[in-house]
């Protein structure tokens, strides 16, 4: 599988240096970042990596953020965190990673509450979402609600570069962002993509979001919330049918030194069954799983 995946990434690099989500598609930031991380874990890919890093540097905006693809101009926190992570992994901390970190610090924000919601809460309908609205994080888009995935990707990257940016602001974002993620944990462990509770109903956790949250919160392995969520993830990963989610689950379980070797077989089976539907991002993540199996997990703070 490793050889196949590597070949697939190499031949699908676009002339501009980036990767699209699928063969022949225009370059986008997310698959480019994961492809660079994957190639960085395997030897003899210098030329492809240089071209890929060149692509990232070219499209970083003046504010330090990256847009999701080449047709968009608006920078987004989640891809900025991914692009920053890729550069950090391939080149170490530099001007681009510092600017990316600054962008994330600048785009950290708290949820805006509209007048209707404030009114509803004031007249006693309570907080239907059951979340602490005072806690900030990152959304998929500016000026919208804060979500688990963009917040966790941002937290992960900021933990990599925290020496670089204005320290008080950065530590403040990290601490509050982490509190926000813990606040959203589902009853019984694990994370949904958003809130844990809506309109009186508990929402269920998912392996992908739980893995991302646990990766972001890896500094606190013994906290009960982490342990409870890890327990959920270990069980859920056994049933997971998404290769994308399974890759993140494995990388997370590896960070927490949990047994995951049987899941690698499951991932290989999914590859043989579906070819990961041609998704280059998932192929790159599978290479990161193989790298973890050889002792190098790029999602480990000390390693990255």
């Amino acid at each position, binding site marked *: 599988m490793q050889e196949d995946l590597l070949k697939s990434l190499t031949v699908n690099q676009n002339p501009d240096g980036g990767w699209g989500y699928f063969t022949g598609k225009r370059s986008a930031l997310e698959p480019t970042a994961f492809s660079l991380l994957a190639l960085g874990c395997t030897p003899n890919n210098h030329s492809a990596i240089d071209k890929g890093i060149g692509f990232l540097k070219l499209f970083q905006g003046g504010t330090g953020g990256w847009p999701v693809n080449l047709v968009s101009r608006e920078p987004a926190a989640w891809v900025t965190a991914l692009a920053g992570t890729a550069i950090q992994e391939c080149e170490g901390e530099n001007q681009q990673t510092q600017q990316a970190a600054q962008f994330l610090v600048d785009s950290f924000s708290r949820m805006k509450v509209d007048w209707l919601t404030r009114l509803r809460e004031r007249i006693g309908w309570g907080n239907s979402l059951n979340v602490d609205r005072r806690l900030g994080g990152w959304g998929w888009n500016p000026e919208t609600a804060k979500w688990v995935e963009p917040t966790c990707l941002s937290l992960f990257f900021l933990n990599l570069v925290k020496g670089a940016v204005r320290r008080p602001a950065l530590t403040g974002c990290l601490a509050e962002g982490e509190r926000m993620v813990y606040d959203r944990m589902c009853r019984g462990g694990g994370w949904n993509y958003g809130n844990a509770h809506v309109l009186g*109903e508990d929402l269920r956790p998912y392996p992908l979001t739980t893995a991302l949250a646990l990766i972001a919160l890896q500094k606190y392995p013994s906290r009960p919330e982490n342990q409870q969520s890890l327990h959920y993830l270990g069980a859920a990963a056994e049933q997971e049918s998404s290769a994308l989610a399974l890759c993140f689950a494995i990388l997370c379980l590896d960070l927490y030194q949990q047994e995951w070797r049987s899941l690698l077989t499951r991932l290989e089976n999914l590859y043989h069954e579906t070819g990961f539907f041609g998704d280059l991002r998932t192929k790159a993540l599978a290479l990161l799983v193989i790298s973890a199996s050889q002792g190098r997990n790029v999602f480990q703070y000390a390693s990255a």
Partner: protein
Amino acid sequence: MHRREFLKSAAALGLASAASSCSRPKLWKAAAYRKAPQSQVVILRAGSYDVDLVSLIIDGLKSYSLVVKGKRVLLKPNLVEYERDTVINTHPALIGAAIEAFRRQGAAEVVVAEGPGHRRDTDGLLLSSGLLPHLKATGTEFVDLNLDETQCISLSSRYMGVDSLFFPASVLRCDLLVSMPKIKTHHWAGMTLSLKNLFGIMPGVHYGWPKNFLHWRGIHESIVDISSTVCPHFVIADGVVCMEGNGPIQGKAKRCGVLVMGDDPVAVDATCVRIAGLNPEKINYLQMASQFLGNLEESRIQQIGEPLSRVMSPFEVIEAFEYLKS
């Protein structure tokens, strides 16, 4: 003031606002007007997903002057997430039948496309939902619209207050967009049908999961602006087993045993709401869409096949939407 009273007042305000908008400047471009004097909606009995769904769909298609031959058809089902023993998604057997039906009608290409609203792991959804065998059996391509190439397009109406949005290239390229919703209650929009189903075409890569940007701009307003810009050419609504209560994910199965089809998405949606024993005129996005996209009034909708009265089956709704029953 109680929650229920407040929601009633809010709904009344919304309706009053929609009504008064007739006297305000129009919020849609002239080219977006596609309301016919009269619309047809086909209701066909389908007791289960084991019946000959292909023939039923072809029967439905034949009631319209829709030209399928040589066209690139994009089927947009409602695939949100899979959980055993739930009825969240358009049934894969119906999607498989639609692929076959459009092929038999001479379509040059049929693709199935969806951008699930909540989750990024669409690959798992294809496997767990049971759709993959239907795609493989028919050699049909699936496009994850969340990750598709995109193009920024000027909107044909302006309820959200934005001029343009990113749309997936596959949707813009197709000749026939077929919305295939599951008939479900929806805890924010009232009901989710062919128009709300179009949230799924909006690329998550731009708008996030669950496309929160659209929620913040107003669910009803977003539905109308998206629909006015890429209006479905045909609707095949899965009403065999529907969802009532706290939909669109946590509700209960509700067996109605029908397929509802038509080329006016507003009229099809209105009919589905009536089948559920609810009043479509109280659903804001339908009210707005009925000003220019299609027909809402029962008198302007000709029912073909089963009479509405014979298939009506009142749905349970959450307290916030009790007012839809009147």
